[in-house]
């Protein structure tokens, strides 16, 4: 079991997660664009938002990998399956609270129940489990986080499956 392995897994897992979400977008399964959602917290310029969003998402990937590492240390073991289970929890948290409640609360350009687009253009809010962005968004979100968790778990647990 290695904490540094979890961080390395976070690096690889974030690349895989970002790429799989992008593929899901291209395949028409979801309209979720995480870099755009994150980057527009800081700027209304699309180009800059994408760059900032990718950087922030990468940082989040490492930060969450560190949290995974702490859980693995506490449990005294790590594996791909354990990581995948944490990925399910991660996905539920991300889709249920992080992106659905917290992000709109701090996002200056995202619609909420108490703001509308009367003064400034706003982004369509994601809704519970990102369902506003397409009916397959739930699957895309959960699937990509399971993949992320499995990679982090595998790296942290010397590539143990179970």
């Amino acid at each position, binding site marked *: 079991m290695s904490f540094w392995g979890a961080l390395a897994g976070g690096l690889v897992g974030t690349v895989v997660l970002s790429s799989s979400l992008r593929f899901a977008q291209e395949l028409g399964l979801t309209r979720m664009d995480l870099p*755009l959602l994150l980057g*527009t917290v800081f700027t209304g310029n699309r180009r800059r938002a994408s760059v900032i969003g990718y950087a922030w998402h990468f940082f989040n990937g490492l930060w969450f990998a560190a949290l995974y590492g702490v859980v693995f240390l506490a449990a005294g073991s790590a594996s791909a399956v354990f990581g995948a289970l944490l990925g399910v929890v991660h996905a539920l948290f991300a889709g249920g609270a992080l992106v659905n409640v917290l992000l709109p609360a701090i996002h200056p350009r995202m619609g909420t129940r108490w703001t*509308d687009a*009367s003064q*400034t253009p706003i982004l369509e809010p*994601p809704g519970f489990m990102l369902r506003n962005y397409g009916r397959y968004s739930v699957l895309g979100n959960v699937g990509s986080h399971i993949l992320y968790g499995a990679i982090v778990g595998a790296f942290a647990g010397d590539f143990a499956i179970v």
Partner: protein
Amino acid sequence: MPRQNGYVPIRDYAALGDGRTVALVARDGSVDWLCVPDADSGSVFGRILDARRGGCFELQPDQPFETERTYLDGSNVLTTTFRTADGVVRVTDAMTLGGPQLTPVRELTRSVEGLSGRVPMRWRVEPRFDFGRKRTTIGLRSGRPFAAADRDALAVGAWDAGEPTLSTDAIEGRFDAESGSRALLNVAVTHQEPAVLPCRDDVEDRVRRTIEFWESWSARVRYDGRWRDEVVRGALALKLCVFSPSGAIVAAPTTSLPEWIGGNRNWDYRFTWLRDASFTTDALLRLGFDDEAHSFFWWFMHASRLTQPRLQILYRVNGGYQATEGELPHLDGYRSSKPVRVGNGAAKQVQLDVYGDVLDSVWLYVESGKSLDKATAKEVAKIADYVTEIWRDADSGIWEMRSDPTHFVHSKAMCWVALDRACRLAARGAIPDRRERWRRAADEIREFVDSRGFDPEKNSYVRAPDRRELDASLLTLSLFEYRDPRDERLVGTIEAVKRELAEGPLVYRYRSDDGVGGREGCFLTCSFWLVDALARAGRVDEATRDMETLLTYANDVGLYAEEIRPDDGAFLGNFPQALVHLALVNAAVSLMDAAR
């Protein structure tokens, strides 16, 4: 004029665009065509191809009305004035131009201004994504009416335009437009990303900036002849067909508008034909749009790189070369003209004339003072080499015959044009010099065309050695200077075309069977080619008369479809067609030059 079975004449449409896609607005205020996100994507409003299932965005008085339409000066922003018994209302329609800021992926905006009285208005948005093939759900997002279908979605903004009501298949509203009132409707489209819901101030600002952009763009038109308004409109129509991210130009932004009502000649034109390369480069350079000519030139040189030295007939606007033809059987087609096709099977045909068009375009580009990089210069020379190998092959010709390939005289002559331009380029040092080989092949082609492709009895070039009929494409031999445009043989060909293919200034492409079946109208491009050929032959008065008559066939906002019925002036075929407007611009400039 009331709709007949839900359809209006093609002539009744005006076009809006944003450099990515084009919307068609009917005279009665209904947007009946809009593909999103791009011109070659599926339609969200496709009523023009199926009055019941296609989808539309209606906006009109809720009482009998008459309309007048015009584009705002020098722009592609449309105004429609509705006159009713109770008052007058003006609607201004625009596809706004985006930018790096947080703007919708595509945006259609309709401003409603009460000019006098009090006019009850109604509007209705019926979104049908992907030609109506996708299940669309309608609901609210942040309080705004919203329609979503997987990767595509749209939000409807309505300010002072009544309280929107939602049903399972439409979003609609009603309001009264009083003198001095201003309402605003907005459709913000997204694709593969969260939707942007714009605010009113931003929308109105974008409309202003869009008008400014068009005005400044059209002010650059370098033409001071007698038909400036028509030439500017032609240039603006052409600009509507430009896919600005790549510089490619779609032949027309529609699919399957029929070449005869009820017929089966219904094709998808939402691709870029290399054939149009020369006419496009020529027109853009002659009008002073060097940047656009530069973009288009490099687009087609890059797009064709995957197949060079062989050139495909058409490419997608994003540079792709797959254009598999299929049908949409769930759509009725414009006034029951089936099938509705997407993709175009002509992509796989051999059409030799395209080599002449492309090499002429390269020549025009270099002649205008621009240079080729080494790799491109080598590719151009390889294309010329390839022409020396294939010119003896039979092909499907400029009109994309679906009958057996044959030896079209026009195709052979264009192979000569290709080699002639290659020699000119080599003489300038622009491409590697293999003039001896190219000139030898060019002489052989000329021998073939002049001995087997000319009929002394008709005193005209003919379609093919085994098909001794006329073909209007032979008019382009004057335009490409296959011979001196005043040469007896070319003048004889003009006379023969007028005799056998023309009804007044309107010209049919040909009269014989082409393997497709069904009828078609007169081809407006050929009609403008005739004017151009006459001008180059020095028959300026005759050309001017024909030009004046042809200009009266435009619709009320100055646009043309591909074809026209000579008996009643009804438009046929895809609309608006880039090649017709190119031919108009080139004919006008040729006439101006000839008159000088």
